[in-house]
């Protein structure tokens, strides 16, 4: 197990280095010269040179890369070109909002998705499965932004059940924090639950037709144990994979929902940075996104080995 863990950590580190190179090169490959963008109207060669010198743009790419990496490693991601605020503090204020929203959404999605998926598999060919399938189709087809707008219109504006927008930090008021986040999390979660439901259903159907399920039934175990333990545990690999992928996607891509509910999250930060050509922020945002994918993948892989003992052994072999 320890060997497997070390192996995976090493792989993650390599991936992170590669991601850093891609981020660095990607930003430099963007059309336009940051110095020109910064100089604005004042484009005399002297001030351009000064800007290049100030931001190290006159150095070779190798030196620039080293600067970028060594600063990033110390947590220094530069300053926003537009506001002069340290990028680090911008990210630190936006990321918790998005992480909380994503985790809430994925929890809601998993509970609904796994539950409906198991029911659909066990009640195959009966009304419960048709209902679950129909709901999943609906969840997949209805766009988030429309659902979000409808929710604001009816639940927030007409009924006043939830705040329509805004955010309160968890540590200043946990109840108000949840109150603000529950609606966007539900909107995001229901959409994702459809995907999780479909995957759970198909992997449960596979598991339920396996020989070891016949053994479990022949042992006289109650249906609860046959389905909820023997079959579900074997289906979880697929479910964990899909949940992990979606969590990664949520952290980088809850953009639309964050905009509709005016949440000061990571998605909003990304979009604003792109619109304002704020290169240091773009660079940092992409790097943080890549890192969160790597971390989630690592967690998912570690979860695999908890769920399925065969993976532990393979890692050691």
């Amino acid at each position, binding site marked *: 197990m320890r060997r497997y863990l070390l192996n995976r950590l090493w792989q993650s580190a390599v991936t992170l280095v590669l991601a850093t190179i891609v981020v660095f090169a990607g930003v430099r490959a963007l059309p336009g010269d940051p110095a020109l963008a910064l100089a604005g109207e004042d484009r005399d060669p002297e001030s351009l040179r000064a800007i290049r010198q100030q931001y190290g743009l006159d150095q070779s790419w190798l030196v620039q890369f080293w600067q970028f990496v060594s600063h990033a490693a110390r947590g220094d991601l530069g300053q926003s070109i537009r506001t002069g605020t340290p990028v680090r503090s911008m990210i630190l204020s936006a990321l918790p909002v998005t992480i909380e929203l994503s985790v809430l959404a994925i929890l809601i999605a998993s509970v609904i998705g796994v539950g409906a998926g198991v029911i659909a598999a066990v009640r195959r060919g009966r009304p419960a499965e048709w209902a679950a399938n129909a709901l999943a189709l609906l969840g997949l087809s209805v766009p988030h932004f429309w659902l979000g707008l409808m929710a604001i219109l009816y639940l927030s504006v007409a009924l006043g059940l939830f705040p329509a927008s805004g955010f309160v930090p968890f540590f200043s008021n946990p109840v108000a924090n949840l109150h603000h986040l529950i609606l966007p999390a539900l909107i995001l979660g229901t959409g994702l639950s459809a995907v999780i439901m479909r995957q759970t259903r198909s992997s449960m159907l596979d598991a339920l037709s*396996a*020989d*070891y399920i*016949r*053994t*479990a*039934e*022949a*042992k*006289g*175990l*109650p249906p609860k*144990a046959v389905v909820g333990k*023997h079959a579900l*545990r*074997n289906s979880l690999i697929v479910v964990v994979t899909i949940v992990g992928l979606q969590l990664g996607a949520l952290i980088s891509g809850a953009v639309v929902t964050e905009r509709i509910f005016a949440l000061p999250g990571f998605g909003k930060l990304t979009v604003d940075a792109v619109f304002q050509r704020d290169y240091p922020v773009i660079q940092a945002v992409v790097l943080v996104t890549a890192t969160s994918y790597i971390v989630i993948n690592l967690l998912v892989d570690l979860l695999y080995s908890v*769920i*399925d*003992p*065969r993976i532990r*052994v393979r890692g050691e072999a």
Partner: protein
Amino acid sequence: MKPVLAVKDLSVTFRTEDGPLSAVDRVSFDVGDGEVLAVVGESGCGKSVTAMSIAGLLPRTATVDGSVELDGTELIGADKRTLRSIRGREVAYIFQEPMTSLNPVFTVGHQIIEVLRTHIGLNRQAAHARAIELLKLVGIPSAERRVGDYPHQLSGGMRQRVMIAMAVACDPKVLIADEPTTALDVTIQAGILDVLRGLRERLGTSIVLITHDLGVVADLADRVAVMYAGRVVETADVHDLFAHPEHPYTVGLLRASPAAGRHADAQRLNEIPGLVPVLTEQPDACTFADRCPRALDTCTSSQPQLTDRPHRVACWNPVREPVEV
């Protein structure tokens, strides 16, 4: 003596997309206390379906008629709760594929403990101790260590021993072994058969042995029921059956079976021409008539019934003369 398991006129039909499929037709047999009954036949003759229907393990597409009495309790049509309390407790199963029949994500100990806790209500510690005892009983070396192993850490033979340990955990009255040695190497097979023989002697378990391997039958069985196309065509004491097979199908089966020395000078094994028919309904005729070298006109117009003697055969023209197999 009253049989432990009495199967009477058991019929199974499957609903399929191509219409009904008759898998088992009015099968009857008894299994006495501590007796080993072998059910033999080709693939698709209905022997596994018969085995699965005993404890109600067939899928929902199956319709089962007839009667299965276990120590006086009727199992056909019994409610789910009753069937669950009998499975694993009174009737236990061993399946053909030890590779896939154990759940890969739980330790073998856990899978044995689960049965003990479900049926006998042992606490965790007692069940763990009992699981180790059971692993020792089926001949697994260093059972204390093996109890924490996952199925993939064990060889095929060891896994089948675990399956047996799990099956006999609650000291069932009847053990149904569905091709228990088919997926194993010959050298491993002998060990598994030894374990089964030992259980019968030590625990007095009755065994229904489903197999197509006549070597296994000769090794372990007291009595044999030969099945063909969903029907029992001959049933007799094992020695009697091997010495004086009466049904032409049994004769063919024995001739087709390889045995060391017996076929040493022959170029190839004898085969029975043709295939087992797939039946949508059971005809009023002998279903073996098409492949039978001794078929008469009666055979295709009327179904032969099992004769009422210790050596029972369902044939209009049984083999009475001594045969060489």
